[in-house]
């Protein structure tokens, strides 16, 4: 009995170990020389890519140049931007200084330069870095830098290869540029979302407060304070991320005002697992969804409405569910809103969905369950930790 158990355990551990090994190693195996060469080249290129995706600067150049040199098959390599040499690999200072001039020429003319052994200024006929090629790097048709490959001699093949590598670098710098502009667009959209909360809501809130001013001045005062808190929070500029607790406080001040407006037409249930209050999420994710439920779900309905906000702890994630029993919506219409093809009332949903997926990855967007007349439930999953997401 004991022996059989040992055997089963060992087999189970080996099987699991095998799976883990496979997952870690990714099933690497050797192939024909051509396959190996292609693999080596692509692998080296993939190692250089992440550095280049950060844009062209001293630091990214220093990290990318060793891989670029391998790709070029050259003895030494150097990378420069318009300001001068950024990083070199296997090139001593003397040669780096000698490279400055041809790099500048390549950048100003926008054409590759060949350095034949007899033209290069070093003059030492045994020098291993006496010849090479310099090719300009262009982003969207504008020269932004130059790449040099050095060796004992220069050849047409080397020039052709350097041209391709420069193309590869350009592609990734273009992607880096794209990343930056997308991030700028996201930030602009967030600012827009902040600005966009107000008109409708500000009007409603102020008229609600106004209705209390005579009948219940104390209540009106409290609501006004809440309103001030709300606007301060939503317009504050610092921090792209907030904790769930902060976001809930905003929802609370918002709902306080809505409660006053709807009085007994709106009943609210909140269930929060205290373990997830520390979860960090992009700011203004929760409140727009709640506002959406009130404005497009409960407000158009004739009956009294129920709104429930449930935030549950699910191991590595917090699961947020915002549900109303209002008028609901046509799923195909909502699909268009989410994909951004229909702009009108669902801008909040679209924006929140976009930002969640931009921050946490494609599988963390909004899930919406709805039908006309059947209410709406919006679900989102927030990871408890995601690299780079920090208050």
């Amino acid at each position, binding site marked *: 009995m004991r022996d059989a158990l040992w055997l089963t355990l060992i087999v*189970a551990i080996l099987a699991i170990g095998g799976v883990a090994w496979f997952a870690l190693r990714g099933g690497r195996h050797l192939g024909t020389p051509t396959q190996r060469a292609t693999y080596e080249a692509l692998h080296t290129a993939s190692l250089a890519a992440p550095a280049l995706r950060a844009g062209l600067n001293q630091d990214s150049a220093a990290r990318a140049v060793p891989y670029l040199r391998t790709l070029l098959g050259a003895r030494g390599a150097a990378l420069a931007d318009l300001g001068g040499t950024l990083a070199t690999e296997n090139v001593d200072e003397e040669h780096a200084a000698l490279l400055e001039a041809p790099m500048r020429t390549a950048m100003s003319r926008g054409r590759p330069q060949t350095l034949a052994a007899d033209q290069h200024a070093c003059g030492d006929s045994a020098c291993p870095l006496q010849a090479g090629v310099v090719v300009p790097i262009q982003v969207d048709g504008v020269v932004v830098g130059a790449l040099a490959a050095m060796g004992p001699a220069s050849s047409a093949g080397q020039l052709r290869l350097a041209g391709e590598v420069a193309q590869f670098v350009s592609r990734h710098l273009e992607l880096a540029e794209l990343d930056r502009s997308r*991030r700028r667009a996201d930030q602009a959209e967030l600012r827009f979302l902040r600005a966009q909360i107000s008109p409708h809501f500000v009007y409603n809130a102020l008229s609600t407060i106004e209705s209390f001013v005579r009948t219940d001045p104390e209540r009106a005062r409290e609501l006004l304070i809440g309103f001030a808190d709300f606007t301060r929070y939503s317009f504050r500029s610092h921090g792209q991320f907030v904790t769930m607790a902060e976001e809930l406080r905003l929802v609370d001040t918002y709902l306080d005002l809505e409660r006053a407006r709807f009085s007994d037409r709106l009943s609210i249930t*909140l269930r929060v697992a205290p*373990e997830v209050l520390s979860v960090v999420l992009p700011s203004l994710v929760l409140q727009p969804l709640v506002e959406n439920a009130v404005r497009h779900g409960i407000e158009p309905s004739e009956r009294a409405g129920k709104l429930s906000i449930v935030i549950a702890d699910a191991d590595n994630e917090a699961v947020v569910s915002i549900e109303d029993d209002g008028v609901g919506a046509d799923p195909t219409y909502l699909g268009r809103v989410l994909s951004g093809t229909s702009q009108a009332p669902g801008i909040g949903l679209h924006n929140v969905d976009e930002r969640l997926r931009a921050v946490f990855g494609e599988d963390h967007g909004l899930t919406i369950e709805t039908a006309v007349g059947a209410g709406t439930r919006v679900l989102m999953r927030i990871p*408890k930790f995601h690299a780079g997401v920090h208050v």
Partner: protein
Amino acid sequence: MTEPLVLGAIVAVAVVTAVLGARGVRVARTPADFLVAARRVPPTLNASAICGEYLSAASFLGIAGLALQDGLGALWYAVGYAAGYLVLLAAVAAPLRRFGAYTIPDFAEGRLDSPLLRRAATVMVLVICGFYLLPQLQGAGLTVQEAVGGPSWIGVVVLGVVVVLGIASGGMKGITFVQAFQYWLKLVAIAVPALVLLLLVQHPALTPVHGAAPPVFHKATRVEFPDAESMRVQRAVTVRAVGTVDGIRRDGTLALGPGDHSIGAGTTLSFPAGTPAPTVSSDALLSYRQWESPLVRIGGHVIHPLASTYGVVLATFLGAIGLPHILVRFYTNRDGEAARKTTSVVLLLLACFYVFPAIFALLGRLEAPQLYTSGQTDSVVLVLPRLAAAGTLGVVLSALTAAGAFAAFLSTSSGLLISMAGAVSHDLLGRGVRTFRISAVAAGVVVTLGALVVGGIAINVLVGWAFAIAASSFCPLLLLGIWWPGLTWKGAIWGLALGGGASSLGVILTIAGIGKTGWPAVLLGEPAIWTVPLAFATMVGVSLLTRRDIPRDVTRKLLALHLPERVRLPEVSA
């Protein structure tokens, strides 16, 4: 034997846990409730929850059992289990909370920017949690055996299945309030019986406990053998035997000569008063003086006791930092300061608890020497109340300790299995409820099989190994990651592989029965003494050789770890 009250207590714990779990989420309907519902978990409650999850079968049953079997040196485990939180308090709690990492793989990836390191850390999570789960299941086996009788593997299997089903179905979650309740239940369940028994025991042997005398049956004693054992008799004795002795069925008086006798499962032997209690053949018979020695013994034998003691001290002092299922609880704290406060309350709560296993060990030595004879030392907390207190009182106190032991098993193993299933589904298989369930079942099956294999090893020794592996892998990763900017992911991976690998290998070889004497027994059986320095040296050495791999934004990361929350970092312009 079947004790309906004990069984009832176990069922009651399970039911109360389930009910509390279902009500664990606070509900708010009126505006005034709203902020209450969203209120943070206060440090005291969170500290209780951490203790609830931490005080496992090892603390509840194992320490008393091991101290009874191997002598008071085993109390080093209790000291270490509590003192580990001092290291956690001083070096880890607040920075880790500020960093915002939920699991150790999260921290590894966030601090050193390496997905590969994340996977290596995930594998270590599985190894540590797996080793930690073994003794929990074993403890559950003992507890169920105490309640319904029969061999202990039935309990291991039944409870393995219960916990796996509970987690896979989503019904068992690590809700703070439930875990906090489990701590107080455990404290009451061990403190009340210990204090009542202290009052009850008016024993003449209380005075001459010193000297070279072995434990003696001071009254006529019936010893039950639930599992087959080999028993070593010191002095010829005539007993009444019912069952199998030396392969022959007996029912009547029987003279046993000095030497080893094999006893079949289910046998009962009745010893006359005044005989020295025989022990299980594999354990040494300790005189009182030997028993009192403050150094750690390995299987009751004195093998380089100082080195063994340092091995236990290193493993337990540094191991608590690296327990995957405990660190996730710190995420619930609001900020670094709250994390620190929580840790100091944990220290206090643990210190209160660990007084009582020592009382049980001492009373067990005086009142229940038959546990040496039947090799059931690990169940001393469960059976001592019934052996020492007569009638209903004994049964009630027994039911109480059984309930506490079951709570210990339940809370720790659910936390461990959730950590394992989360690690597998999150990092190895891909997210989703389905993969989480599959992972929970797979992990549960492997560990249950493992628990059946390691059957005969003391609970506390098994837990000590889980600590040794954690101390040789995650402890250096966390300490260096938090306090040393020079750590690189390559250094961390090599450290995890060498430290974690070497300590796991030592433990597996010891379980397989290799190296039972001399230095091999110490170095394999208490591996922390060399694997902890090895892991630290590897991480530092390899990191120094791979300085190019230091993350570029290491300064920003260290700031995130150490800057108090009041000071906000400026936004990075992209």
